[in-house]
């Protein structure tokens, strides 16, 4: 095995470990939202520190590999993809932390009718599923799975676009729940951004595997 292969293997493991941290933030976030568990939400904020450390470590390791091995071809593409994925995962961690803080700041448990009306739980499940698909695409080196993320992300975009209307509709009947509703709207916005970060990672996986740059391309064409 060439020495760089060992380094890239370790880097791959680091990215996977970081993904595990972010995934744990997200799943805990969903539970905290559904059960209004503020302790669990605080745990998410703590995990964020580990995500940040992981980001710095991956950055440093990428820098070392660039400097020492001058990678080319698929190694270079992997390294570039890992570097950008690292940034995207860190942002996903930030988003999970942001959601947790909204849960912490909310005074009383979210009303089940509000959760249902906004489809936020459904959206959260989908966001977690998309995040899981990223890891599958990354580990299996499967660009078809990565492409599938664009389609799934449309669901998040759709709920996000409907959110204002749904929440206004709900508030007409429950005007005293404006605080909760606004916090949920913020959570929905963050889940939408989570999907965008997942799309970015999917693009990097495709770049690594196929040497195709699809950023800023029309996603409809990519899905087909």
């Amino acid at each position, binding site marked *: 095995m*060439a020495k*760089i292969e060992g380094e890239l293997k370790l880097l791959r493991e680091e990215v996977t470990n970081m993904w595990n941290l972010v995934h744990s933030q997200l799943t805990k976030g969903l539970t905290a939202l559904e059960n209004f568990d503020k302790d669990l939400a605080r745990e998410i904020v703590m995990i964020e520190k580990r995500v940040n450390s992981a980001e710095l470590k991956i950055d440093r390791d990428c820098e070392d590999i660039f400097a020492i091995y001058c990678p*080319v*071809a*698929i190694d*270079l*593409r992997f390294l570039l993809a890992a570097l950008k994925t690292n940034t995207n995962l860190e942002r996903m961690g930030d988003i999970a932390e942001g959601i947790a803080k909204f849960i912490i700041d909310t005074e009383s448990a979210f009303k089940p009718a509000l959760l249902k009306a906004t489809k936020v739980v459904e959206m959260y499940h989908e966001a977690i599923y998309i995040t899981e698909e990223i890891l599958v695409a990354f580990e299996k080196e499967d660009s078809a799975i990565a492409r599938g993320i664009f389609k799934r992300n449309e669901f998040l975009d759709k709920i996000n676009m409907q959110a204002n209307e749904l929440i206004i509709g709900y508030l007409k009947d429950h005007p005293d729940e404006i605080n909760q509703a606004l916090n949920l709207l913020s959570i929905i916005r963050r889940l939408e951004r989570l999907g965008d970060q997942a799309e970015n990672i999917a693009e990097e996986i495709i770049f690594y595997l196929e*040497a195709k740059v699809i950023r800023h391309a029309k996603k409809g064409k990519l899905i087909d």
Partner: protein
Amino acid sequence: MESTIIRSENFNAYFGNNHVVKNITMDIPKNNVVAVMGPSGCGKTTFLRCINRMHELIAGATAEGKMLLHDDDIYQINPILVRLKIGMVFQHPNPFPNLSIYDNVIAGYKLSGMRLSKDKRNDIVESSLTKAALWNEVKDSLHKKGTFLSGGQQQRLCIARAIAMEPEVLLLDEPTSALDPISTASIEQLLFELKKNYTLIIVTHNMQQAGRVSDKTAFFYVGELVEYDNTREMFTNPKDSRTQNYITGRFS
């Protein structure tokens, strides 16, 4: 569109029965730097030496197929004339040890019996050393021996000697493999300058160097041309798995 200066068509080279260059067809565009890389024994140096008919100087070495300079078949031209148009620089700097820097530069003219006026000689020496980025360093010691120079300077002297003959093409066989990184960097910078006036074909084992200096890269393996493409494409997205394995260091 870039014009082709060298074209090989179904070109083969042999050492006795050993078929070392196999059916190579490739175009070398004018004023480009083309890097030829591949593992030891892949035929890259032999191919390079076929371009200016140095290959046939070895006993038992033969070649067949077409090697064209513009549209002229190199193998139908007097080899001395070929080497005037296609100069060569070797792995180890090899200035003539008994000649001064000045005489080294114009050695090609002397050896081919071409007589020049003193003014013309002076002009050639100055312009060749200037093009080889050596003039400022040696202009006050032109009559010292070439071997008095450092390795990097000696190699630039050899380049000056080659371009003094005003070739169209310069072949470079691992020209920096015996040099330190500073001298290597100065030669690489020089190649960038030289391509304005010449077409350069460089054999190198140093892939980073191929990436840095060349416009196009050819990958040879067991005598065959596996892949030939723009260097940036070759180093980011090689099409053949053998190229990818070689440049990423996974060659078995």
